[in-house]
């Protein structure tokens, strides 16, 4: 008995250690960035243009750029992803074509982000002549995030109780009416989870925007979807590696703002999601 008890304690100890190993780096990252970057935060840092070759002043253009890229890429990817997921889970029959599509989605999720960047460069920037612009970057990021949105949407649709569909059909609703009125409303919170996951990914990626939208430095703010923008992850990269003499707290401050921006957007999306939950 005691032997069993000791083994059990060792077992649980190992599991706990593994869990802590997962949590520790996260905590370490947050602590590092907050302690080193906190002193850089100020209204000037958040809301003004860079000065002195980006060694001083603010990072407002990069914040705005990342914000705009997140919004435009989600605005493009969410409807398409949701529609594709609805088609795949509600209409499509299980045949060779749907299996190929499923395989394509899984593979899309596995493609490395720099490949998306090259793809965006060749398709949107060069072939479709959108140039290096918000539209090219947002489409590239959107395609990158499609698998996440499609997968979470399908999970959400699958989680809608069978009885809702059954009742709806039994009342004579068509397939589309059933989806529109009794499936989608109850899958909406789950679908928004996909959007939330995408926000973090889109905001943090550097490679896909490298060739498609991101600018090293812009003296003016963007005015249209055809303009280039600065973006936080790319700005962080150049401030760290390309420009000598950038103060340390300036770099960590940029990272802190990136994390904070993702957090704020996630909270906003989660708020919207809980609105939908309450309506049920």
């Amino acid at each position: 008995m005691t032997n069993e008890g000791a083994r059990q304690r060792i077992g649980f100890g190992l599991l706990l250690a593994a869990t802590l190993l997962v949590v520790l780096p996260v905590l370490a990252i947050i602590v590092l960035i907050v302690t080193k970057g906190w002193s850089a935060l100020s209204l000037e840092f958040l809301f003004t243009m860079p000065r002195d070759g980006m060694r001083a002043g603010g990072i407002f253009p990069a914040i705005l750029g990342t914000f705009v890229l997140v919004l435009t890429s989600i605005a493009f990817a969410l409807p398409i992803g949701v529609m594709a997921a609805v088609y795949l889970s509600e209409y499509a029959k299980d045949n060779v074509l749907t299996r190929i599509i499923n395989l394509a989605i899984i593979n899309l999720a596995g493609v490395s982000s720099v490949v998306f960047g090259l793809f965006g460069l060749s398709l949107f920037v060069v072939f479709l002549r959108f140039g290096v612009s918000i539209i090219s970057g947002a489409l590239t990021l959107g395609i990158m995030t499609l698998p996440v949105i499609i997968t979470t949407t399908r999970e959400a649709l699958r989680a809608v109780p069978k009885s809702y569909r059954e009742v709806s059909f039994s009342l004579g609703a068509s397939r589309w009416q059933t989806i529109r009125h009794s499936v989608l409303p109850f899958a909406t919170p789950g679908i928004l989870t996909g959007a939330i996951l995408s926000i973090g990914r889109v905001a943090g990626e550097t490679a896909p925007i490298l060739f498609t939208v991101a600018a090293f430095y812009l003296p003016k703010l963007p005015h249209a979807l055809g303009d280039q923008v600065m973006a936080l992850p790319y700005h962080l990269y150049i401030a760290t590696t390309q420009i000598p003499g950038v103060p340390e707290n300036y770099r960590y401050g940029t990272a802190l703002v990136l994390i904070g921006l993702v957090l704020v957007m996630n909270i906003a999306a989660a708020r919207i999601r809980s609105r939908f939950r309450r309506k049920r």
Partner: protein
Amino acid sequence: MSAKIEVERLNLWYGAFHALIDVGLSVREKAITSLIGPSGCGKSTLLRCLNRMNDLIDDVRIEGSVRLDGQDIYAGTSALTALRKKVGMVFQRPNPFPLSVYENIAFGPKVHHLAKADEMDHIVEDSLKAVHLWDELKDRLDESALRLSLEQKQRLCIARLVAVKSEVLLMDEPCSALDPMATLKIEELMRHLKDDYTIVIVTHNMQQAARVSEETGFMLLGELIEFGRTPDIFTRPQDKRTEDYITGRFG
């Protein structure tokens, strides 16, 4: 005394499993017909043939005919939504949508474009009155239907069918989730409703069949063993198997 639904030589297979074997019966208009039998005898399957809910299941094959008002409901597929509007279903577990009481009733009329916005209030009121829920719920129309009692939920589900002007109500064990008092109340409601509706009820509960229905069918292993007036089935069953079942020798 006319027949609302006529089923003839109905056979149904789930894959290789022969679930309904040569079933034939006729359902009288504005009366209650009950189907009894042990679990797995095919009574729910038969019920679901009457509004083609089995169509939702993959790998199902149906032969024979089901005529509603003389029209074969399996001929062509165009009239499926119209059929389901005419032949509504009440399920074993009360299953209101997680919407308000009002929206639950309004769902059917909306999908069938039956009402303009200003008529909807009347439809909701009339439907709730028909199931004796109006007085209880008239001040709670905006409340979530999930907060109702089980009995109220089941009444609400029936009211949903009233709202689309269903003619036939198929009830699949409508009281099995309810307590005895609630069961009695739903049965009372069924007796009221049969003045305007044709009702087919599947039930495990033989006493319930005896209490509410005019006609009863006994099913076993996919076959309709005996069908006739309820008093006859319960007092003078013709088939040995019916007698064994109603006297509680098996089932």
